[in-house]
């Protein structure tokens, strides 16, 4: 048959394919802020074109502060240009593979634990940079200038090395509504679990609901209780135990009983089994009939569009549990951080680090505080109004737990524990049933 024309068909369809593909494969132009200075007459000697991958979303206030800070930084350092890619929380998943596939990324931010665990192949050791002082650190070496607990945490995580510049410190503590506490006659924040239960009972008497939670933060109270009782390492072992035999330990039952008691006494909001994040935290500030919520210091920032101006924020740390190994000087806290890619040239690394310092000290750290209601990392900056109690909490803090406590650290079972726990706090199941539900999942 007609060989020529079948060749022609193949050829023309291939050409069409190629044409279509080439026509639409123009390399993606990303939408980030770009600006490069004119270089001439520069006072600073920093010079580099930087790509910054962020785990914030463009619509979050932190992203806006980063963009504005970059503009200011580029104005002061005309040799530097910074281009952002805001990936949101997916950043932790996207970044390692992006760097391994050879993409130029000079600096990035993420939750501190993720920087250490996920980006270890690209993290530059930053010890030397921390020894120096910067224009915004008042002639003090950076390591002595910014918040010491956050530097210590960075050293802990990095096994005595520093791999990131801490930003946006955060702690997981009880947020409470001061007006409700006042009205219910709770004049002192609870220091012990008994005082906590007593405070809740007063709140119920005054016609309010003591507690609520969204599912993702729900197990924090249980994790805190167990970490106080047996220590954090024990809780890590508990969630990693593949036989689930540790769940038969009396300590687990004791903690579960304590929570069951709360549920029995009606501490939790009625809809606690149905809320989907961030419904409960919105109701906390909109309805103003719930007194306490174990949440992060990021919460005032997340609800800032809906909270009324006269809402009175308070914080207190998780109370001391009787017979526990840790008291209420142990707090789950962490921070975000900016890491620098070790494949950078010296110039790029220098510029990247300078920008990381620039955005986390002085004026721009204050901007983070003001716009995102975040805690400052620069000790000269003031806590946001909603988080004034945090200063005292950090002063009292001696020990650190992982963010949201160790109970939620094994992704093989964290959701199983959460689901069973929601049944416990909504009164659907007893402490024994709660433990059985988790053990049965095996």
């Amino acid at each position, binding site marked *: *048959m007609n*060989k020529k024309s*079948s*060749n022609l*068909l*193949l050829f023309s*369809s*291939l050409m069409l*394919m190629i044409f279509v593909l080439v026509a639409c494969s123009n390399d993606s132009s990303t939408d980030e802020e770009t600006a490069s200075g004119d270089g001439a007459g520069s006072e600073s000697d920093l010079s580099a074109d930087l790509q910054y991958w962020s785990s914030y979303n463009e619509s979050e206030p932190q992203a806006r502060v980063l963009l504005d800070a970059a503009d200011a930084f580029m104005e002061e350092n005309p040799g530097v240009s910074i281009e952002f890619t805001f990936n949101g*929380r997916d950043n*932790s*998943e996207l970044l*390692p*593979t992006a760097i*391994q*596939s050879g993409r130029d990324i000079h600096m990035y931010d993420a*939750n501190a*634990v*993720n920087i250490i*665990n*996920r980006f270890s192949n690209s993290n530059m050791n930053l010890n030397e940079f921390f020894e120096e002082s910067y224009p915004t650190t008042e002639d003090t070496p950076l390591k002595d200038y910014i918040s010491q607990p956050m530097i210590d945490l960075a050293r802990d995580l990095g096994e005595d090395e520093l791999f990131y510049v801490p930003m946006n410190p955060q702690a997981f503590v009880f947020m409470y509504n001061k007006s409700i506490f006042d009205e219910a006659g709770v004049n002192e924040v609870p220091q012990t679990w008994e005082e906590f239960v007593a405070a809740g009972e007063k709140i119920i008497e005054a016609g309010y609901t003591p507690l609520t939670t969204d*599912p993702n933060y729900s197990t924090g109270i249980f994790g805190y209780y167990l970490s106080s009782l047996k220590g954090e390492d024990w809780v890590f072992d508990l969630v990693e135990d*593949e036989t689930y035999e540790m769940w038969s330990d009396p300590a687990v039952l004791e903690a579960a009983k304590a929570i069951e008691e709360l549920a029995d006494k009606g501490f939790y909001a009625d*809809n606690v*089994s*149905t*809320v*989907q994040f961030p*419904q409960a935290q919105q*109701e906390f500030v909109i309805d103003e009939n719930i007194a306490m919520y174990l949440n992060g210091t990021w919460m005032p920032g997340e609800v800032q569009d809906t909270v009324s101006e006269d809402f009175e924020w308070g914080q207190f740390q998780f109370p001391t549990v009787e017979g526990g190994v840790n008291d209420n000087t142990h707090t789950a806290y962490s921070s975000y951080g900016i890491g620098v890619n070790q494949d950078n040239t010296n110039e790029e690394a220098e510029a990247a680090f300078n920008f990381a310092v620039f955005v986390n000290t002085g004026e721009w750290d204050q901007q983070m505080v003001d716009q995102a209601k975040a805690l400052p990392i620069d000790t000269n900056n003031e806590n946001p109004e909603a988080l004034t109690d945090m200063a005292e909490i950090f002063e009292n803090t001696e020990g650190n737990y992982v963010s949201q406590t160790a109970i*939620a*650290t*094994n*992704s*093989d*079972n*964290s*959701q*199983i524990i*959460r*689901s069973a726990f*929601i*049944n416990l706090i*909504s009164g*659907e199941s007893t402490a024994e049933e709660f433990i059985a539900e988790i053990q049965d*999942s*095996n």
Partner: protein
Amino acid sequence: MVMKKKTIFMFLAPALILFGLFILYPVVRTVIMSFFNVNTITSPTNEWSFVGMQNYIDLFSNPTFRISMVNIIKIWAITGFFTLGIALVFAAILSTKIFGRKFFTSIIYLPEVISVIAIGYAWLLYVFNSQFGLINSFFSVIGLESLSNIEWTSPDMLLISMIIAAVFGAIGQYTLMYLSAMTRIPEDFYNVARIEGQNSIYQFFKITLPLIKDVIRTTAVLFTTSTIGFFAFARVFSHISTITPMLFTYNQIFGTEINPETNVGMGAASGVMMSLVGIFFFILSNYIIKKSDYEY
């Protein structure tokens, strides 16, 4: 008909080349990968170490995976039954001489043109919401307190809620398929029944259903193959009771915000298991609804 081998090859080549490069080769490589310990998705072959069946053993001792397997079977059975069932009813209604037939058809098909993610969030954030949700406020307005108190988004109900949303998102496509088959049935078949005085329910079961049996079989197969990849709704509803093998595997490969550790070898094993289950269901749905002998 005869055709030269070379010409046949010309016709097949583009499809086969793309199929080979982007489907066959990756699937084979993934199957091989499932017998190796592979830490990250970018690990080159020389970092793989052979572990035999270990990934499969780990997989089946993983509680989350087992839950996801049970979930997908529930989703397949319940969603399948209601999606195909409701679609049949809608199609039967729309094939009658009803007013506004075109309008109603287009309304029923509408969810098909909306992104699954949008449908998922619309149901999760709005319809099922316990504070301002459509269902709860509807029942409390008409005074059915017991129904308005249903906790759609509680751990026990979430899977059912997700299934309802999934059924809503899928009926349009199947309704249209059935409708198209039903309109092809010659009117004579019904005239005979009508003369014999049979009612329309009888007609539906005795005439319509047997005649579109082949189409039902095809839709059952189509539904099954699409269920194995059930992912978007599960990611939107993101709860242990709604996790599916596809989402579990995705988390194994890319990690999650809480737990960044990845195990790509196990992810591959999980993908292989899903494929086997998919092929099993595929054969099963072919078997349940045997090919009929009707011709028309």
